[in-house]
């Protein structure tokens, strides 16, 4: 330990013992901040203190000095914990960098292109609760007459969930029929998931496809949060019910698919449970709160709606997301 440190401490101590002002204590605490930065262990601080006292009061009984040796012995373990802390902080920093990088890699690997089809306005947002996202959106489209979207949620959050999503992505990538029927999509992905994952890992997934020619939205669900349909003529929302087992439970499932006709101004809101299970101070947020929020903005572009819903719900939860948050809107505009 540098002699300079010892000299400075002695000076601070001398001043304080003489005057006992707040100014002196402030100087002492600022100095301790520096000592910590210089990796000086607490047992060393005691040792400096002892030798400073020895200079100032050379005539104290021998036993007083002995007492400091016990105090140093006591502090050794605090010093060890302190050094462990410093190395843990470094590791934490590394871990953060690694997680950021991983989140980037995930984003690149799982990227999907928003379809560009006539008369359909698409908005999407997906925000992870932790660094990595366990929700997933994948678009399958011929970019002419059909736009399909998969909205999936792994049970679980963080890295393990994120890893699972690669499975859905590569499964979806394998579709040669870009206009595949929702029930076929779920049948196939279910088989892949069932084969690859452990028994305690499940995925819920909604698949919806809009057909420009007959303005029909066809959908199927594997245990997923129901989508909402906005009927612009009646000016009201209704849930799009769909039965179906979670992905990965049994190998062969025969999913059901359903149709709904969309008029101009109608839209479908697809989401994960991270949206519906938002909690404010008064408990869970009611579905009505969300539908009212959306209805107010119904004439705005789909992307603007989903962005704004996120902003408002995030604030209601005091900026603490408990689950990954994903929202997709398909809106017929003409």
């Amino acid at each position, binding site marked *: 330990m540098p002699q300079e440190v010892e000299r400075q401490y002695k000076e601070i101590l001398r001043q304080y013992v003489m005057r006992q002002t*707040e*100014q002196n*204590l402030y100087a002492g605490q600022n100095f301790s901040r520096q000592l*910590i930065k210089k990796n000086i262990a607490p047992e060393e601080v005691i040792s400096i203190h002892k030798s400073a006292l020895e200079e100032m009061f050379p005539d104290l009984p021998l036993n007083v000095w002995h007492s400091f040796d016990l105090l140093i012995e006591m502090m050794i373990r605090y010093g060890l914990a302190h050094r462990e802390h410093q190395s843990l902080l470094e590791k*934490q920093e590394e871990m953060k960098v690694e997680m950021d990088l991983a989140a980037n890699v995930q984003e690149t690997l799982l990227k999907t292109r928003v379809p560009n089809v006539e008369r359909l306005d698409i908005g999407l947002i997906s925000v992870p609760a932790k660094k990595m996202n366990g929700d997933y959106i994948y678009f399958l489209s011929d970019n002419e007459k059909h736009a399909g979207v998969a909205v999936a949620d792994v049970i679980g959050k963080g890295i393990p969930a994120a890893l699972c999503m690669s499975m859905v992505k590569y499964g979806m990538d394998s579709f040669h029929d870009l206009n595949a029927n929702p029930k076929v999509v779920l049948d196939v992905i279910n088989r892949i998931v069932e084969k690859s994952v452990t028994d305690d890992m499940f995925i819920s997934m909604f698949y919806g496809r809009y057909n420009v020619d007959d303005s029909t939205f066809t959908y199927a669900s594997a245990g997923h949060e129901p989508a909402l349909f906005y009927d612009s003529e009646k000016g009201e929302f209704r849930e799009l019910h769909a039965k179906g087992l979670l992905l990965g439970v049994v190998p062969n499932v025969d999913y059901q698919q359903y149709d709904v006709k969309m008029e101009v101004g109608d839209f479908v809101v697809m989401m994960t449970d991270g949206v519906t299970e938002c909690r404010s101070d008064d408990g869970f947020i009611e579905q009505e709160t969300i539908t009212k929020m959306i209805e107010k903005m119904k004439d705005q572009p789909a992307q603007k709606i989903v962005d704004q819903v996120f902003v408002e719900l995030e604030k209601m939860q005091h900026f603490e997301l408990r689950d990954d948050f994903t929202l997709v809107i398909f809106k017929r505009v003409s």
Partner: protein
Amino acid sequence: MVHRSSVEILTEWDIVAARQLGRNEAKEVGFGTVDQARITTAISELARNIYLYAGKGKIEIERVSESGLQGIIIIASDEGPGIPDVRKVMEDGFSTSGGLGAGMPGVKRLMDDFKVDTVLGEGTVIKATKWLR
């Protein structure tokens, strides 16, 4: 009756004045040496943040007694830029004030109760309470 005293924070010397005020109040309420030093350190951190990031502000010390408990509240207020990301500022290891265990999480640990109220462009009010046991 509310017993409240305050110190304006403009220069580094005012940090010392705020500490002195807090330590005196803490002593009068009956806190021991270690807790006096903790309350003073919390004031030090809060005053330092005002001095460094808001330019000016105020530290108020209020004595409280609630259902038989005696305590002290530190109120640090400024009209600075506000805190853009409260979640980040409250994270361990993230510290603008530099150094292990310092910053907002440090103040939170030194005291029993801690509340932040911040509006971007308008300022920040932090209230931290410690109860005498």
